């Protein structure tokens, strides 16, 4: 017998002996292990699904509640306040001066929110520091003009396709900021897996690219959307 065989024999014998000796005790250990496994699995699984999303995002309330529905009823469609400037650049969230085209320093209605608006911002001539749900990082260039004033069907999109039915909302939901990336939750998507049901559920680069491939047959070149 060679040395190697010898060792192998001994080894297997040792193993068998140990196994036989420890059988009953190990059964119990395994059972506890399974329980531990199950408990840990459940805790982590649930916190991964329920707690993690809550921890990942910090919530910021808007300076005051904004009723889109009321404003669209009074002022008209989205373009009344969010419009393309004459040079084709996008005006974005209206500044105080734009609000003051309709509002005065006296509240028009009786809501508490308008009172805050008048006292805190109009009276102090301060811009309202809105949180922008759809805020993209600095490296992104997005042309609203190209998407709503463009040539073909791709250039005649409606606001809802990307922004959802925000115009029908009566209150401002909290702005959720990813603690790691600093981005708005609307960019990565409401769904923690990033699954989307609606076209407006997510605003990542792939979402842009997919639509571009569909419409133009090509996702475009870097500079088309980056600066």
């Amino acid at each position, binding site marked *: 017998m060679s040395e190697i065989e010898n060792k192998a024999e001994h080894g297997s014998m040792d193993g068998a002996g140990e196994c036989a000796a420890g059988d009953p005790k190990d059964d119990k250990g395994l059972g506890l292990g399974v329980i531990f496994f199950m408990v840990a699995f459940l805790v982590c699984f649930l916190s991964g699904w329920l707690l993690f999303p809550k921890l990942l995002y910090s919530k910021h309330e808007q300076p005051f509640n904004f009723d889109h529905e009321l404003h669209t009823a009074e002022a008209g469609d989205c373009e009344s306040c969010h419009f*393309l400037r*004459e*040079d*084709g*650049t996008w005006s974005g969230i209206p500044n105080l001066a734009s609000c003051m085209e309709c509002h005065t320093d006296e509240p028009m209605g009786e809501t508490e929110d308008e009172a805050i608006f008048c006292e805190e911002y109009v009276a102090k001539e301060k811009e309202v520091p809105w949180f922008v749900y759809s805020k993209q*990082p*600095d*490296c992104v*260039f997005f*042309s609203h*003009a*190209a998407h709503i*004033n*463009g040539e073909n069907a791709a*250039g005649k999109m409606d606001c809802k396709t990307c922004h959802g039915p925000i115009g029908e909302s009566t209150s401002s939901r909290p702005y959720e900021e990813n603690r790691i990336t600093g981005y708005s939750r609307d960019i990565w998507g409401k769904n923690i897996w990033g699954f989307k049901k609606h076209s407006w559920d997510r605003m990542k680069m792939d979402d842009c690219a997919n639509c571009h491939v569909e419409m133009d*047959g*090509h996702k475009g*070149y*870097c*500079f*088309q959307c*980056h*600066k």
Partner: protein
Amino acid sequence: MIQHENAHKFGMVVDLDKCTGCGSCMVSCMAENNVPFKEDETRKKDSITWMRVYKLTNGKPFPETEVVYMPRPCQHCSGLGDHGHSPCVSVCPATATDYGYDTGIVSQIYTRCFGCRYCMGACPYHARYFNWWDPKWPEGQENYLSPNVSPRMRGVVEKCSFCYHRYQLAREKGYMEEREIEENEYQTACTTACPAGAITFGDLNNPEHEVTKIVKPDPHPDPMNKNVVGKSRNPKVFRLLERLGTNTKVYYMSEREWVRKAGDNYLDGEWDKRKNHHGSSSDHG
């Protein structure tokens, strides 16, 4: 490669006889594109100048000496055979730079770049610069930064973009007024700044554009070197290291023969042979 109908091919021609070397193009570029500055900018290898004006001399002794200034932005190479494989684009492992087949402009995306600097090694024109340090502006100076170009950060490469944001802004206006943009609506910052009017910028695919009228690019590959496309049919116009087949879109123009000769490296006697065959091009790649 994607086929584009009505693709543009933006390029420029610089009249070196008009260039005064004043530096307006360099400063206009820096101010337009948020290019930072440091205390010591005399080490030119780490001095970020998307547009850099080089000084060339004919090497002759006093008083036969002549000097010419040559502004050098990114040359926006379309690569061998005009297929979009620019030297830098071909080597970028991060896809941080690509060739826009719709404009002919070579991009650079800072957030995507991880700073390997392969592109700098690949670029034959030293047009790319690495951010060895985070840019710092003296207190208050960041107030003049433009939102149209992202400020860069340490560890990434940057270069001339042919002021792509100006193209974007011109197009937005075009969309607004539901029309194509005009030649004068998209001009780079260096072009508009040049007090001597030495730079002409436009679409080399548009025969109406001034740059095309001056350059008269040959749409057919050079019979002697299939890799070279878009060679100028104007005998006074040349490109830098044209025979490499990088197919740059920045052309230069000069009445002076020594200047045109300085645009490439020639063996003894090669230039004269080539000169005698001008038009039919005697190059062998």
